[in-house]
């Protein structure tokens, strides 16, 4: 059975300060799988992730051509179309960064933050979703008694799982991870890898990774970048 396609990228070109970063990238990603993006540093993997949630638009002097379509709510949509608000897109295409970036607030408020952004006010519902997300991120048992502590007091691995929980709380359809374990030790890495394998039943995961073993352990599919092009797309 061939899985359904979730993301379709066609003829993508990206440049920064007149330097080409991505060139003629066309690729598809299947639904509910983990795809690893590999390649040497500077090959354009992280940039590619940023074209899927439009985060690159914050970078001055950057330019992009091409189309990106993602199946959102069972319907393929051009994510650069004017009728799709960028804030809506980012709620459905969540991102986890290389270095954990909890906001300077309590654990609870960090996870509740996206709910606050979408205007959710019911305290009961918020608490319920926080618990759900933290459980999904395998963090609940470690933090349930200290939800009001500053999130920056958590260990690096916990912080990263908190960021994943925060990304999951709005129930996104796609999860983008940019080398999420590169700043973590082996044990924390293993925890996060297990977590990703568990999550793939629910959503489509794209992960940038430098470690061949990690790719082997978790990826269903590998896309390799070299000098802004894709060389293997089986």
């Amino acid at each position, binding site marked *: 059975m061939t899985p359904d396609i979730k993301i379709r990228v066609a003829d993508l070109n990206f440049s920064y300060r007149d330097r080409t970063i991505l060139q003629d990238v066309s690729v598809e990603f299947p639904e509910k799988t983990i795809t690893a993006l590999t390649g040497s540093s500077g090959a354009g993997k992280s940039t590619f992730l940023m074209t899927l*949630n439009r*985060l690159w638009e*914050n970078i001055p002097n950057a330019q992009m051509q091409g189309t990106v379509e993602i199946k959102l709510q069972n319907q393929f949509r051009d994510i650069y179309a004017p009728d799709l608000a*960028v*804030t*809506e*897109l*980012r*709620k459905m295409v*969540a*991102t986890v*960064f290389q*270095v954990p*970036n*909890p*906001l*300077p*607030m309590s654990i609870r408020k960090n996870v509740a*933050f*996206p709910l*606050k*952004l*979408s205007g959710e006010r019911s305290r009961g519902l918020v608490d319920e979703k926080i618990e759900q997300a933290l459980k999904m991120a395998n963090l609940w048992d470690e933090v349930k008694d200290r939800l009001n502590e*500053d999130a*920056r007091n958590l260990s690096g691995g916990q912080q990263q799982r908190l*960021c994943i929980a*925060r*990304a999951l709380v*709005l129930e996104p359809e796609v999860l983008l991870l940019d080398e999420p374990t590169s700043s973590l030790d082996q044990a924390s890495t293993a925890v996060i890898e297990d977590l990703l394998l568990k999550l793939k039943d629910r959503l489509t995961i794209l992960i940038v990774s430098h470690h061949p073993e990690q790719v082997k352990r978790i990826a269903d599919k590998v896309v390799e970048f070299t000098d802004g092009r894709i060389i293997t797309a089986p």
Partner: protein
Amino acid sequence: MKRYRELIAERVFLLSALASSAITVAILVFMVFMGLPLLKQGGLYQLLLKPWAPFQGSFGIYPMIIGTGAISLLSLLFAFPLSLGCSFLIGSIAPPSVSKWFRRLIELMTGIPTVIYGFVGVFLLVPIVRELFGSGSGLCILTAALVLGIMITPTMTLFFCDSFDRIPKAYLDAADALGASPVQKLLYVILPAAKQGMINGVILSLGRAVGDTLIALMLAGNSVRVAESVLEPARTLTAHIALVIAADYESPEFRSIFACGVVLYLFTMAVTFLVRYLTFSKDQTV
């Protein structure tokens, strides 16, 4: 030879630094020294809390302290919301091109000479206030505070923008990636994280407002009575110094302006050390 040159250079730099810092001390010492005779005569209580009535031999600077407080606090009341809104606009709400242009404009505004604000205030705002409230000459606390408020707004706005700029990029990225709109990013991420810096900005702006001479001198009416409403004239410590300077050098009137100088100096010091304390004390969690 080379060794000597190194040593001499270092000594010269050190001496310059010492000389520059000596100026700071010298100013205070001189003020205290000149104001001392009056202090001995009547005591601190008399000086700070008595009214100014030279013909009755009373040289208290109490009315000026009240005048300074009223005008600077009222001006802050005008300037704070204005600066807050303008820094919101620059920090996140306006599109980048507008925000850049607006910020440059505000930077230029900090360069408008104070005397110009005063001059236009005298000929434009004073008649308006006079007509509008139909009492007095239009030279009053309100007029001075309005103009002073406009004058410190650009500075305060830049202080605020500056504390926005210091927020770690990771926080902003996190908010962006979670789909926060610009105004949400501002309200829920930038503002809480920049609070400390913004408090510093307000304190420093208060320092500027208290230290300004020309606007109060030109627009507040300079009455030595304690004002009962904002539509009455008042005199600030700074304006008092400017107005009394012409008197006889030995007179108690003349001595009293050094008391004003000392009060202003000590206030400056308090502001500086408060800001330094707040800056150096640990980051606070939101």
